[in-house]
């Protein structure tokens, strides 16, 4: 097992004919992901290095058997593309695109909920299940298969922590980038639920950052519903209030959304929080060895 993507994934990439979409889509294929289709309106019938391109995601589902959609469409066209994916019949939609207006995502979020489709992102690096499948832009070379599930708002920070885990001789069941936008399809809680149920995952590393209250909500959920150990890291202790720190969602509003409050909420529920990515990986390894 692993979560969200794996051997059963049949991937359709919206935007496969674009520069970024083809680069990453083909990288995912080279890793072993079953890339069954590309989707670009008006380019149906073409192919990208042998991968058939369809006009719609629905066609990719009926013609090529796609069950997972990855969205690599420019920001101002991305919300309609996600909506199309939600209605197409796929089970999972992974949106990589950064810069989608938040109120568009708000509507899209509820469409996905209603349709029972799992939406990951937007503004995320995707999902990697080491040794099985990679959907997104996560560089797979820094991650080995193993018992630690990772869920994170950040890309590079996760690569940093993953690489330290690999150097310590361990690895991951899956790595899920949930994204750095104010509204994302899946929050920490949604992914914690999946890891809790996944027999291959023995413990969880959660990487959060300033803004919103997803970490505080996760702390409550962990105390109530998660039996596996969770180790966390929070970025942004030095971020000033009112300033957006790169991610659209990484902003302290007044006195809410601070790193200190998140750390406190997690520690109050018994979650150990590392001071740096290095210390977080070290704590994870220590916890794992104690299991």
């Amino acid at each position: 097992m692993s979560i969200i993507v794996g051997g059963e994934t049949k991937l359709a990439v919206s935007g496969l004919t674009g520069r970024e979409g083809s680069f990453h889509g083909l990288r995912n294929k080279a890793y072993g992901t079953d890339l069954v289709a590309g989707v670009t309106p008006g380019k149906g019938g073409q192919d990208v290095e042998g991968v058939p391109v369809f006009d719609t995601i629905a066609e990719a589902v009926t013609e090529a058997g796609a069950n997972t959609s990855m969205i690599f469409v420019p920001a101002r066209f991305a919300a309609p593309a996600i909506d199309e994916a939600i209605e197409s019949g796929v089970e999972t939609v992974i949106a990589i695109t950064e810069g989608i207006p938040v109120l568009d995502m708000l509507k899209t979020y509820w469409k996905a909920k209603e349709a029972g489709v799992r939406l990951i992102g937007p503004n995320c690096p995707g999902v990697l299940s080491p040794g099985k499948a990679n959907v997104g832009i996560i560089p797979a070379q820094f991650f080995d298969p193993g018992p630690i599930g990772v869920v994170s708002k950040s890309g590079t920070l996760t690569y940093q922590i993953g690489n330290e885990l690999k150097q310590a001789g361990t690895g991951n069941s899956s790595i899920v980038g949930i994204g750095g936008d104010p509204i994302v399809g899946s929050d920490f809680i949604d992914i914690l639920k999946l890891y809790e149920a996944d027999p291959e995952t023995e413990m969880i590393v959660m990487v959060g950052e300033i803004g919103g209250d997803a970490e505080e909500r996760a702390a409550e959920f962990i105390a109530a519903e998660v039996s596996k150990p969770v180790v966390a890291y929070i970025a942004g202790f030095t971020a000033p209030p009112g300033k957006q720190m790169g991610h659209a969602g990484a902003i302290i509003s007044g006195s809410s959304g601070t790193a200190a409050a998140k750390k406190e909420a997690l520690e109050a529920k018994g979650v150990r929080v590392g001071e740096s990515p290095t210390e977080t990986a070290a704590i994870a390894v220590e916890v794992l060895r104690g299991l």
Partner: protein
Amino acid sequence: MDLLEYQGKQLFAKHGIAVPSGEVADTVDEAVAAAEKIGYPCAIKAQVLIGGRGKAGGIKIAKDAGEAREYADAIVGMDIVGPHGEGPFRVDQVWIEGGSDIAEEYYASVILDRGEKKLLAMVSAKGGMDIEAVAAEDPDALVKRHIDPTREFTVADARAIVADAGLAEDALDAAAEVLVKLATVAAEEDANLIEVNPLIVTADRDVVALDAKVTIDGNALFRHQELAEIADTVDDPQEQMAKEKGLTYVKLDGNVGILANGAGLCMSTLDVVAQAGGAPANFLDAGGGSKAEAIVNALEVIKSDAKVTAILFNIFGGITRCDEIAKGIVTASGQIDLGVPLVVRLDGTNSEEGLRILAEADLPNLHQEKTMLDAARRVVELAGGAS
């Protein structure tokens, strides 16, 4: 992107919400001329992006031309520090508006609730003061209701909220209409936060927005031409320069210049530098797939901040290739005189090649460290005491 009070009020007026009429002024003379035109009493209000202006002396009521000049003279150019220590914010503009005959002061807002994935309407009969304090002291005084994203938010919905908040009976209809219009501003202008404090009832029983705090979603500016023009005006010279070069940069107060790739890693780098006893001068995310040119641009921006006494490059290459970063550093050092030590930590994709390029270039004042923590300690040591 936050709007100044008068920009928020202009947005309200566009959507039919009553606001006092007024004029914006950049100088004391302009302010006095505006006051003469509007008549007395009039309010002279500092236009800065921070709350607590009244307490800081940034809002005064003038009864005649003499007072208008005296207050404008005091407010234009003053520095205002926010309630959480933000700033200081220099007052470059004042807003002059007609004095209002206030009978009641309420609070109304529509904000994005990220956790619930819905817009949240909040109303209180206790307006005109710090709403967080009101909510902490008397939670029942602040009525909070989510707006159902799947259907229209009606006047009837809004009326139930303002009635529950205990607003005056004869103001309920007008207040409900304002609340619906605030939700319309949120939806049509891509505002993630709209706060009116106070929302007043005048002696004539009109409901008027006496203040406006509006935050527009920066990702939606492509469909709001007028708001996009406001976003183009940035006060800070480094932030302006970074914007022109397409970099994600936030100016901070310290002396350690920082560049990292990825927002999360960059925030983490700031934290680790602070833990090592240093004070970060900025946040700068070089982004994924950074190329040599981006590195040159980034160094120019960081270096233009005179406070910077040492710079840290913390790169974990994923999509970003460390050899590209190294080439960028070598190119940049040929084009600009850094004049301060540069600590570089390269790890991840093509890091060996990157390290080799840097070693061969043998740049003066360049220090390599293997880990993020060692790099942070080194740069703090080289930067010297906090400025």
